[in-house]
């Protein structure tokens, strides 16, 4: 009874609903595209950390991020498919692309600090953006999807903050 998980991709794909109006569809596409972009940038950083992080705990964190992000991506794709929305390819902002470049140039303990700092900043931004998107989303199913994903992002943020404090203490 206490053992059930979690981010089930099939359940996250909402059943088809009434046809979208063009303005609603554009709004929803915009929100989902941004969600994918945020997710994509974090996925790239987590992949880097899997190979480059010095601390095994930071590598475990990266693995957990990758697992959650894959399921979030499936949920977004499922939603888009069931609502007949065509999502553009993710386009990271210049700031997000620069962040990845900085990570690629880091090694050892500096990488761990840079990765955790980047994840904390990214998650804070993502939570704020998706919170605002939830408030303006025209569709109940999309609001529900965002309401389910935001707490997972908060968990990832909290975990990143704990790890940063832990690594900071250990020098």
């Amino acid at each position, binding site marked *: 009874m206490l053992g*059930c*998980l979690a981010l089930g*991709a099939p359940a996250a794909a909402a059943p088809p609903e009434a046809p979208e109006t063009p303005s609603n569809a554009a709004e929803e596409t915009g929100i989902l595209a941004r969600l994918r972009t945020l997710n994509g940038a974090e996925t790239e950083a987590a992949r880097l950390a899997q190979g480059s992080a010095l601390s095994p*705990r930071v590598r475990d964190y990266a693995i957990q991020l990758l697992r959650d992000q894959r399921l979030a991506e499936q949920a977004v794709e499922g939603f888009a498919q069931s609502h007949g929305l065509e999502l553009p390819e993710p386009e990271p902002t210049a700031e997000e692309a620069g962040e990845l470049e900085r990570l690629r140039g880091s090694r050892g303990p500096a990488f761990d600090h840079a990765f955790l700092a980047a994840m904390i900043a990214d998650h804070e931004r993502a939570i704020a953006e998706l919170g605002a998107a939830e408030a303006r989303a025209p569709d109940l199913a999309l609001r529900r999807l965002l309401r389910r994903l935001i707490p997972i992002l908060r*968990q990832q943020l909290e975990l990143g903050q704990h790890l940063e404090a832990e690594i900071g203490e250990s020098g």
Partner: protein
Amino acid sequence: MATGSAVRRRSGLEGAGALAFELGLSGALAGTAGGILLMLWELVRSAIVGEGFFLPLRLVAGVFFGVDVLIAGPWSELVGALVHLAVSIFFGIVFALLVRRDLPYGKAFVSALLYGVAVWLVMTYAVLFADPVMRERLLVSPADWFWVHLLYGLGLSTAPALRRALFPARGAPR
């Protein structure tokens, strides 16, 4: 292998103590069976969807360790298994107290499924608030959370049959 009656005789348990032992043992075994069924389903499902085989056990341990449990080691899985088993046994014993030992399997099956739904309600609206990490992840797939409690009920439905098999010498049904 000694039956429950033989164990009871050897240990000198009689009267109310004997009945408590009978209910406790059969309920604990049925609860364990239901708990194992539920957890096996969740472990396999978690592995298939890509969240990792042991995540469900870690999430249970989240009640003690919070969000850090997501990257905790095997000890957290052990704690999760023990907590899950304890809760499964507790609800199993309560079920054994509620049903008669002579209940036919068909009726026991339906009763156990209904009881599984009751356990789902208690877990969802009371117990889960103690483990926000697990609760927030369950919100993503609430249907699965409901269904596994029916699976738990399936395991529990063996409780009356277990009582009859382990304690055959008992006279009046209760």
